[in-house]
């Protein structure tokens, strides 16, 4: 049995140049007042930095030039992503648009909608959010109840999404919605592209346990959409959303949310730490090295036009477990005063609090393991 297609990885030749470009950019622009902002950085929004990346040609890297993209390879894009995450750069504003919304629009969107949104995404000016979860549809996504009703040429939406990350910054949402009255489960669902300033749409903040504001409730109250807002094929929403989840789950952010904490640990303990800290660092570096290869090999398979859905799920699950375990391991190994204002305790304290979300967002650990089990032939 071999569950993970293991191929030798070949990295792009221009990789080192690309890295240098990103590192220079980060050195110039990323100096947060609060070191906590260096952690879990793909949840930190900074539109100015997103525009800077757009100007540097580092967003929409794999998209066609016709839509403002740069027609570079998925592994080149991968290098940019891992550099930004390793540096703790504030990439939250554009992250979802660049990762999935733009790609999905290019794949399924009406030409008018593509022209309207995608070039701005590549410039780092148009941001997106994901409308999947609802109050009664969490892990059980097929239970979505928000409805789209035909109205002349267009559609009218009613219902509610929840836990919508970035909705308060976003210009646009792609949502999974029940478009066939009386349909059940994963039949009769469609995806729609929804402007966040549409009349009848309201966004209400939900504060997380640290008091931070990343996710939201989004209400649709008779929101009118033109015919072009239907994404792809009516009734094929479930299949499209599953493909979207592959994009959402496969990136390096699924194991790198705490990398800056590890770097800070290495800095803070200096050149001659205790044996136990030395071995802990060795262990964490070994995981990082392995996960990086696993994650990049998923990117390489996508680049070859394959759909490594099972591999991507395995990497997300392993990656989330690793990044979730890291803060607790470091807390156990290093005596820290979490009330102090040094970088290590601030970063550690923040990650101890937000790391429970790592195995929830993008599909819970239990749901991912269920998908892996199906891939193994157990279900």
């Amino acid at each position, binding site marked *: *049995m*071999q*569950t*993970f297609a*293991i*191929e*030798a*990885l070949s*990295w792009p030749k221009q*990789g*080192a140049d690309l*890295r240098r470009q990103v590192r220079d950019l980060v050195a110039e622009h990323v100096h947060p007042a609060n070191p906590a902002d260096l952690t879990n950085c793909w949840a930190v929004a900074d539109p100015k930095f997103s525009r800077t990346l757009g100007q540097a040609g580092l967003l929409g890297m794999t998209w066609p030039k016709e839509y403002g993209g740069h027609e570079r390879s998925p592994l080149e894009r991968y290098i940019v992503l*891992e*550099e930004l995450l*390793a*540096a703790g750069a504030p990439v939250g504003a554009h992250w979802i648009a660049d990762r999935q919304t733009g790609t999905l629009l290019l794949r399924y969107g009406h030409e008018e909608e593509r022209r309207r949104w995608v070039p701005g995404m590549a410039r780092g000016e148009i941001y997106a959010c994901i409308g999947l979860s609802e109050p009664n549809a969490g892990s059980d996504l097929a239970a979505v109840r928000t409805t789209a009703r035909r109205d002349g040429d267009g559609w009218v939406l009613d219902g509610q999404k929840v836990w919508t990350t970035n909705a308060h910054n976003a210009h646009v949402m792609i949502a999974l919605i029940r478009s066939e009255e009386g349909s059940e489960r994963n039949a009769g669902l469609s995806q729609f592209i929804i402007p966040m300033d549409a009349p009848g749409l309201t966004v209400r903040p939900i504060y997380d346990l640290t008091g931070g504001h990343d996710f939201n409730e989004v209400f649709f109250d008779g929101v009118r959409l033109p015919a072009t807002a239907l994404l792809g094929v009516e009734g094929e929403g479930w299949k499209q959303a599953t493909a979207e989840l592959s994009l959402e789950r496969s990136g390096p952010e699924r194991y790198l949310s705490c*990398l800056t904490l*590890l*770097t*800070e640990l*290495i*800095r803070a*303990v200096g*050149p*001659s*730490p205790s*044996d136990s*800290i*030395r*071995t*802990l*660092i*060795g*262990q964490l*570096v*070994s*995981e*990082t*090295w*392995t*996960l*990086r*290869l*696993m994650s990049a*090999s998923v990117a390489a398979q996508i680049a070859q036009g394959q759909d490594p859905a099972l591999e991507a799920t*395995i990497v997300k*699950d*392993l990656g989330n*477990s690793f990044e979730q375990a890291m803060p607790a391991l470091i807390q156990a190994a290093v005596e820290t005063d979490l009330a102090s204002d040094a970088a290590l305790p601030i970063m550690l304290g923040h990650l101890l609090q937000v790391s429970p979300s790592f195995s929830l967002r993008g599909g819970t650990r*239990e749901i*991912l*393991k*269920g998908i*892996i*089990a199906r*891939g*193994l*032939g*157990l*279900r």
Partner: protein
Amino acid sequence: MNEQQHMLTEMVDGLFAGLGPSATIEKNWPQIEELGLTTLLLPEADGGFGGSWQDALIVFRLSGYHALSLPVPEAVIAARLASGCGLQGRGTIASRSDGRLEGGRFTGTVHGAVQSAGAAYIVAPATDGGSIVLSTEGAQRKPANNLAGEGRDVWAFDGASAFAVTEDVFELGAFARVAQIAGGLDAALGMSVSYANDRKQFGRPLAKFQAVQQSLATFAGEAAAANCAAMGLAQALDRGNADYEVAAAKLRANRAVGVGTSSAHQAHGAIGFTKEYDLHPITRRLWSARSEFGGDSHWATVLGGKVITAGAHRFWADLTALTD
């Protein structure tokens, strides 16, 4: 995989599947010799396959997958390292040496010599880096076994003729174990999945219980990690320097052994704990492999030390420079 690697896989898979854990050197080594497998890493000009470390990964991994009881990876590595020494016959490798090398003569002991009864020479790590190639002529062997009953012998040498080579056999031995762990975990996972689908309790296959599914899904992740680590290390060896990668890969594979063996045995229940059932040839090799050529604490100390010495500002840069 290229065409040649597909052929190599097919050939070796069939051979090792037939030989498995009950093969013996006395009876079955000629089959290995016949294929010329021990010359895998020798240049074609010298009558070898001219293989790469990625080719070696295929062979070593399959030896773990089939719980092969023949020291094929060890002979392959020994032949490669001893290629300039003019020695004939089957070579093997060892994990440690204690003693003095002076004027081409070695006096001291060698530990963990793999299935070395009848071996013509042993390649062992030198005490100060690199390796020494030792002819076994006139030396004394004290047999010892690992958990799977495979020879891990101790040898006493008294002025034996010895050659120093620069390649580090300890690293290469670690690579062999990483590859075997990768294969062994995949095999144990496959057995566990089949067993869970066949065995019924409470009126349905074990596979239908979510707790069993989740545990085997976790196992699958560990097996995947070990396999990716093995490939990453093989690629590094082919690039020419794997000091960093061997530490990272062996440590990761070692950790996967812990999760994998316990999940496999848990899924099998009591039957998996019997001599009769074919899980233990895999798991006992896995437990041994975890300690051989560097346990967790050894490689964690090495890797942690490297990263700490380089400093925080070099950590990510060094990691990415490995593949750029």
